[in-house]
């Protein structure tokens, strides 16, 4: 048999996923959006536990595979070991993974219970979410705390929630299945027409944009109150990112790789707030938002079904609710669908 040096090529190729994995671990902190809720951090922790287990198994198994290929390559004069296997080895090799899997199961069941079966009971902010092709509608009960009354606050595309408070979403759809995805909160739930789903989360941080570094940062409520933050007068602009990676040969390719920055809005009036009061100092941050995505295919403009959520200090949240204009068109979307088919929840709230 001619000895094609295939194993060396194999070695080179096996390196590809291994290197990529290394790149992954190194780059993770940048790619996984930082979790902004306790449950989100729990999910990340479970993810990392599994990651450690998986990387260990990956390295051991691929290493052994590679070792066997090199060590047991056919040589003249050496015969293979004649063996049909061993029941003892088999049992050990089944038991060890079984124990690992048992750990993963127990950890997952506990967390699953928290994120899916234990809704907040202590006075959460209740928001109704109505998905449609291709936008998000939000409704708050208003001063009387009853949904479906004229004092409801209705918004489209952008919602606001107070920081450090439980938020309970009631979600449904008026046409097809969408998926309510809050990446930073690690919340995702399909929005099914005819089905009223509940998801909940709690934001612990307020997203703002650092004007010095032109990057988004997350502040706790105390940090936020201590810093001058512009609440209006700035605009988010973007342009193709001039940084080019070695494999990017085409300039037109980078139209989807953008560099974002906040600039002064020529039409807007700059208002800077610090500790709940308007101040005259130059702002350090601009108030920013988290994104809401649709993660279930919902039609041809699925990719554009984006919403935003502003996480605000309590008083700003109250002001935001007051500032939402009344819109008959938006209201008609609720009357026609939700109020007709989800009456029991509207009464209960």
């Amino acid at each position, binding site marked *: *048999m001619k000895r*094609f040096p*295939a194993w060396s090529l*194999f070695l*080179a*190729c*096996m390196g*590809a*996923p291994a290197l*990529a994995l290394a790149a*992954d671990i190194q780059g993770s902190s940048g*790619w996984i*959006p930082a979790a902004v809720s306790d449950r989100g951090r729990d*999910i990340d922790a479970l993810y990392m536990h599994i*990651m450690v287990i*998986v990387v260990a198994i990956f390295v051991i*198994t*691929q290493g052994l595979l590679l070792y*066997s*290929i090199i060590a*047991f390559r056919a040589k003249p004069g050496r015969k*293979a070991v*004649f*063996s*049909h*296997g061993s029941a003892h080895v*088999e049992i050990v090799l089944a038991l060890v*993974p*079984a124990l690992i*899997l048992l750990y*993963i199961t127990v950890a*997952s069941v506990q967390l*699953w219970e928290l994120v*899916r*079966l234990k809704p907040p009971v202590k006075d959460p902010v209740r928001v109704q979410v109505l998905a*449609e092709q291709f936008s998000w509608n939000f409704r708050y009960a208003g001063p009387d705390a009853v949904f479906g009354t004229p004092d409801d606050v209705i918004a489209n595309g952008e919602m606001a929630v107070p920081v450090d408070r439980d938020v309970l979403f009631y979600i449904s759809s*008026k*046409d*097809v*299945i969408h998926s309510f995805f809050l990446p930073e909160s*690690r*919340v*995702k739930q399909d929005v*099914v027409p*005819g089905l009223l789903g509940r998801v909940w989360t709690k934001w612990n941080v307020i997203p703002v944009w650092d004007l010095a570094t032109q990057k988004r940062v997350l502040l706790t409520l105390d940090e936020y109150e201590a810093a001058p933050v512009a609440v209006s007068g700035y605009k988010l602009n973007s342009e193709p990112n001039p940084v080019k990676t070695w494999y*990017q040969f*085409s300039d037109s390719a980078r*139209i*989807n*790789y953008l560099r974002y920055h906040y600039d002064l809005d020529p039409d807007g009036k700059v208002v800077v707030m610090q500790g709940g009061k308007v101040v005259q100092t130059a702002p350090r941050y601009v108030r920013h938002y988290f*994104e809401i*995505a*649709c*993660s279930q*295919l919902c039609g*041809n*403009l699925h*990719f*554009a079904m*984006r919403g935003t959520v502003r996480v605000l200090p309590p008083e700003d949240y109250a002001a935001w609710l007051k500032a939402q204009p009344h819109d008959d068109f938006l209201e008609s979307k609720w009357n026609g669908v939700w109020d007709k088919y989800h009456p029991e929840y509207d009464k209960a709230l």
Partner: protein
Amino acid sequence: MSAETVNAVVDYIHPEPTDFFHKYVWSYDHKIVSKQYLWTSLMFLVLGGSLAMLLRWQIAYPNQPVPVWGHLLKGIFVFDSTGAISSDGYLQLATMHGLIMVFFVIIPLIVGAFGNFLIPLHIGARDVAFPFLNALSYWLYLPAGLFMLASFFMAKGAGEAGWTSYPPLSDVAGAVAPVWGMNFVLIALFLAGFSSILGGLNFLATIIRMRAPGMTWSRLPLTTWAQFITAIFQVLATPMLAAGGAMLFFDRVFHTSFFLPHGLVIGQEAAANTGGGFPLLFQHIFWFYAHPAVYILILPSMGFASDILAAFSRKPVFGYRAMIISMISIMGLGFIVWGHHMFVSGLNPIMGMAFMVSTVFIALPSGVKVFNWMGTLWGGAIRLEPPMLYAISFVSMFIVGGLSGIFMAASPVDIYIHDTYYIIAHFHYIVFGATLFAVFAAATYWFPKMFGRQMNAKLSYLHWGLSFLFFNLAFFPMHFLGEAGHMRRLMTSTGYEFLNPMAPWNEFITLSAFALGLSQILFAYNFIYSVFFGPKAEANPWEAATLEWTIPVPVPHYNFKVIPTVYRGPHEYSSPEAAPADWIAQNVPPIRGKAAH
């Protein structure tokens, strides 16, 4: 069936045809049917792969005109008036890529082509149990494929509700543009499902009742065992798909409301259907089929890999019995894990918990198989021929795909990675990395038996190296996209700020995917050239022990002149009984004076 009775009726089963029509078109011969499946599904593989290339172009270079094709087909097919891919076109590409690859490439390729060819040869039979049904199954599959292709030519294009075709999107008028394109897809799936059921019951009956004397269940080659388990899935799960598709078809054509609730409003208009149904019902029916279908996609490849690894390690499979037990447990558990596709779909969370437990534990038999493959290599005398390299890559890629599956099985983690590129990475590692590499292994391994010629080994090595490299470069970074929360089926991620950092990775993936696609030309060239001009092969070029290698090439019409009697297991390589040779065929009578196993 005893050898005497079969030998007595050999000429009655189906005499060797003399005319072209009965020899190559409506043929009862399992070898011809297998080749019909092979060529048709390879054509679909080229088509499905090309669709994927277009998809990748759009993701990396959003709304840029597609080179060549965009200019040629401006304004038609999936292209808009500038030659870029339109938003409807993108979804059609995604939908049809998935459907074609699952139903018209992988299943027909590994079951229709290789299963058909190998099962009778492996068990020592002259043909499958029901040759008529075998021919019928191909001739249902072909029109199904034609319906699939025709759907592209319908007004407003092919189906665009994703390969899962979840209602109401796939169901209610006005949610997506295509009308008859989607209906044609459903008809195609119904026919393909019927074809798959016929194939499956044929294989089951063949394996249960047509084994040669001495070919006990514990002497079957693992390929055949895997095909047996697969066939159970085909027979008992596929009807669910047909039924779900039929209900969807009723909803679309007769305006019933099986999957449509009350009060649907599409745009500003109330839907015409009366309502009263449940969208999630379809997901239950669909995944009751489609999860077993995932095992239909992988089990036969596991079988190929097991037999090939043993043959080229010159060693019996490590834990043959454990391999079978694990396949049987995969079958048992495979029927009760479908809910893990529905963790975030509005499934009752208590059920989600139950499905999570069963899902986590289906990793166990898969793990046992991986350890057994590694045990087979351990202590072997490994010959790194092309089939062996492909088979080892299968194991390596299956490990990656299996390990990433653990993240999804843990349902709280799945909440975040569900419907992201993590899923795409996972199942492409399984269906491309594992299954297609096993198909390459099987193709190079059984090529001499199928076509009586040898493939060029150097080209195979080159193809293997390039495919392995570019496959990993294309699909491994998809895990990163998934970690970043990059949703599936996004025509472009430009609109989302949180996905912006992933744009360079998307371009990297696309370039790797193009390179991966181009590497396949090597295989296509090697395969087609060798079918016609390759060097003539010997009957048993790999010194393998299973029955198909005991008969001459080209395989005669009735496979076995005399039905063989089987005396030992399928992988008795390096057995002391065989010394000084390192292999002994299954049908060689026990050699006196040496310990028979």
